[in-house]
């Protein structure tokens, strides 16, 4: 069961990591589909 929980924990870690890494690399659709002249907020 430890292996199962480890696998599930890895899903959470990878998913949260991917979210922040892609955001940091400017891959959010807000950033990739707009220029500096566009005010989103």
């Amino acid at each position, binding site marked *: 069961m430890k292996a199962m929980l480890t696998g599930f924990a*890895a899903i959470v870690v990878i998913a949260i990591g*991917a979210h922040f890494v892609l955001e940091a690399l400017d891959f959010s659709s807000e950033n990739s589909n707009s220029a500096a002249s566009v005010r989103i907020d």
Partner: protein
Amino acid sequence: MLRTILAVVATVLFCSAPIAAQQVVPPGNPPVEGEIGHDATGGAQTLEDILARQRGEEIDDSFRREAIGNPDNAASMTGQLGTLGGVSDAELWRALRYGEANVTVSAGGDVATVLVQDGGMRWYEFRQGPLRTYGGWLLIGTLIALAVFFLVRGRIKIDGGKIGRTVTRFEFIERASHWLLAGSFILLGITGLFSLFGRPLIAPYLGKEFNSTLLIYSKLIHNNVAWAFIVALVMVFVMWVAHNIPNRTDLKWFAQAGGIIGNKHPPAKKFNAGQKIIFWSVILLGASISVSGLALLFPFEIQLFGKTFAFINWTGVLGWFDIAPLPEYLAPQEEMQLAQLWHAIVAFVLMAIILAHIYIGSVGMEGAFDAMGNGEVDEAWAHQHHSIWLEELKEKGEAPPDPDTDPKVTPAE
């Protein structure tokens, strides 16, 4: 809905009125096909074209698609209509409508050069109709088939019961990778189904507000858990591919229907032919889902279908079946539409296969879950389902020797 109906009625009236005016056929007397050609309409559609299109029939629209003017035929700039450059307004609009116009944009790339794109309607209708219907019934049908199989066949038991000695079937890293793949696939499957069925099946009962919140989080989970699935897919492939190369033992397994029907238990190595089918389904379909998923995650960055269609055309396979070549140039929007549909279709097929895998790995077979639970399987189970693998382990000394045949082993008092 009402707005859609009104729009359709208005479009039909708008389109048919001028054409009806050009024809001298009395009302209630539809023209016989071929009676009025495109010459008579000045190159425009005939009523028969429009009616055929409304009936959903395939029409040859090359008379419009290709009537986009020719700049080489332009009158001189000083001549009458010379400034139009050999292309009338109607021809220019046709060129825009069929994606043939040479559009230049200062921002937005290829995507922005497409001003009219009707593929979205085909995508929308396919996604609302056949995709939901056949995909949904595939999953429900699979569940019903498994339930019927369980009622008829019952649980596949270990002949003579467990003997209490175990062998290690999967190491920790193998099991963790399996659960990384399994957990992420289930999350992706559920959130994907929410995205497809939320509007018709959740919103009417639990409210649009609830459905909206659910889909916002589903999208967030789907987009990010996708990476866990891809990582696990690579890990599982690397660890198990060597054990999943087809060999002659698989033929015996197929000949005995894998022991699923009847009481025979065909010999097998670490993975039997059925498991190899699951493995290659997961790898190939999973890879395809991953690639189309990446195309969706990074919109308009990855073009898959134009190149694939070009390759299929190049092979000439379609010609054998009298099928016209596939379009090799697709608008960026059309690439996305096809990526979404392909992603969902392949995912439905893989979900159905995985339902069967979950069944056989849990309620369907006694002792099977232990392999992925704690990694230790009962020797009787291993002997019944993977006899060659067990023998190999014993030869290598990785499984306890059989006390009945090995004189060095004395039974415990």
